[in-house]
């Protein structure tokens, strides 16, 4: 049996990956729960969707569920090894959520015409707010990720970065 210890990658990378996954999952979850279930602005399925759009939507929801769970387990693993870099992790969350929301707002809603944010209203305001928030999340996430590019966990029990 090979020891998993030797295969552990750098804490920086693991913090970023955990944050990215959790951010993607969080954005997918917010989309599903707030916009689909609570507000019912989005539709379960509006019948105008292309098969590519349907495929993309199915895959992204499946990945969103996986990402939120996997991201949290990765985070628990970082905590257990005293390897958390909270700023870098937060950067990953913002980046993941922003990228997901931008993809959803541009490619899925507009390019594939999967569904719209709302129906029977002037969409321009909604689309602008949606995508501007996405870009702001990405900018904030990228800033934090850049700022922590050399961060090191304070008391790591894991191998130091190579």
């Amino acid at each position, binding site marked *: 049996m090979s020891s998993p210890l030797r295969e552990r990658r750098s804490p920086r990378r693991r913090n970023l990956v955990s944050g990215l996954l959790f951010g993607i999952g969080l954005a997918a979850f917010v989309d599903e729960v707030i916009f689909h279930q609570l507000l019912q602005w989005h539709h379960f399925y509006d019948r105008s969707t292309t098969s590519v759009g349907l495929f993309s939507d199915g*895959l992204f929801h499946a990945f969103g569920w996986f990402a939120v769970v996997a991201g949290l387990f990765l985070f628990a693993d970082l905590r257990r090894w005293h390897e958390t870099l909270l700023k870098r992790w937060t950067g990953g969350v913002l980046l993941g959520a922003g990228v997901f929301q931008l993809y959803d707002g541009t490619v899925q809603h507009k390019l594939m015409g999967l569904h719209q944010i709302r129906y029977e209203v002037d969409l321009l305001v909604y689309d602008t707010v949606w995508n501007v928030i996405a870009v702001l999340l990405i900018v904030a996430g990228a800033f934090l990720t850049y700022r922590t590019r050399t961060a090191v966990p304070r008391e790591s029990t894991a191998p130091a970065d190579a």
Partner: protein
Amino acid sequence: MHNHGSAFPVESLFFIPAVVALVAYWAGARSPRSGRWPWYRTAFFTLGVAAVLVTVLNPLAELAHRDFAVLSFSHLLAGMLSPLLLVLSRPFTLALRTLDVFPARRLSRVLRSRFARFLSFPVTAALLNTGGMILMFRTGLLQAMQESMPVHWLVTFHLLAAGYLFTASIVGRDPSPHRAGYRLRAIVLVLSIAAHNILAKGIYADPPPGIPAAAAETGALVMYYGGGILELVLIVLLCRQWYASVRPRGKVASAIHPQ
């Protein structure tokens, strides 16, 4: 249609394999050789058998023929919930521990065979599972099931077997030589969930032959959200296995990183 009023409904015959399986499992669990078999595994096995049994017995079997939403629900029971409970009950571990040497060796040889390895490879298992589901809703099979009980039984058996194979290949804890790595299992799981989502929305928009639109919509919602809960359980189980597999091991960790 069938004569459901007869004194001896033929469905009762399904009690025989169910009771045989339960008695064999209970006997194994109580055997001293099982080594304090946890009670919850016995409970999982019992519930797993019950979950698939109710789908072939009345009233559920008959309701499922009339109402697509009920059919959708009974497919969740036979194809997802029951396989999950049976996999969690670890029947092969129990059998290997409690069987006599010769049958146990034979079983272990079967488990190690090339065919078993092929079937339990996540990609094969997922194709059998998802493929069966697509055939059922997108060909004449669904109508054949509603017209003939034996077809309904065969399909239910396929759902159970393929569901078990798939669940075991992703989160199984029974001995499985050459278990696939976490990355492959995660990818196959995500793609399978995606296929389920796409199929459910497809049924919502384009009802299978012979199903009225309103019934197809309700059935698709049951399939999508009901399946979603069980898929979430699979994701958590897979991640928890990974989490346990990379836990720090006291001695090793301090030997490599002396503080």
